[in-house]
């Protein structure tokens, strides 16, 4: 079964610093991969997704993610973090054909002045 692992539960960065959130997937074929963001007490919003093609994917709010098959990774990046980026970020995967979307444990991002 497909799964994703987010090894960092909490990350703290200074405002203006760069950010990288890690995600590793486990699946035989190339999976569908997603990054979602959740503000406190809210539902989730899609930041970006990858299916195939260009391995560097651009998303909303200045985020991007790079798919690396050799490392089974799909890390989320942002060159300069804003205080409003403080939230919880979830990596997700869907196995094609089963339409079942599973999420990682999430990474809570704290942004300090």
């Amino acid at each position, binding site marked *: 079964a497909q799964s994703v692992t987010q090894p960092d539960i909490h990350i703290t960065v200074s405002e203006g610093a760069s950010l990288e959130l890690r995600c590793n997937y486990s699946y035989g074929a190339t999976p569908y991969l997603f990054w979602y963001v959740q503000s406190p007490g809210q539902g989730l919003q899609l930041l970006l*997704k990858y299916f195939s093609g260009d391995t560097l994917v651009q998303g909303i709010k200045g985020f991007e993610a790079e798919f690396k098959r050799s490392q089974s990774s799909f890390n989320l990046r942002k060159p300069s973090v804003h205080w409003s980026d403080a939230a919880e970020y979830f990596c997700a995967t869907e196995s094609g054909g089963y339409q079942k979307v599973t999420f990682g444990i999430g990474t809570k991002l704290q942004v300090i002045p």
Partner: protein
Amino acid sequence: SQTIHQWPATLVQPVGSPLSLECTVEGTSNPNLYWYRQAAGRGLQLLFYSVGIGQISSEVPQNLSASRPQDRQFILSSKKLLLSDSGFYLCAWSVGTGSEAFFGQGTRLTVV
């Protein structure tokens, strides 16, 4: 445009009481529907998903059940709540393989 409604927003229920959480989607047909539970430190746990009316796939054996009586209605139920059922429940929908999942605002359930 499509919208998803999930209610109630918060719920406090005693142990042993029944549960019914409802989720409806507007503006689309034959969506995939999902119920997730979010607990601290455990991410989003997929509980049930449905690709059509009456088709329910259960991911985790537990005290809960789901039903899809209509195309755009997804209900999460329990006959007798346990303390461990407390959590944040999220309903979501998507249009098919590889598509974005759209989430409701969630229900905070506290079992006391």
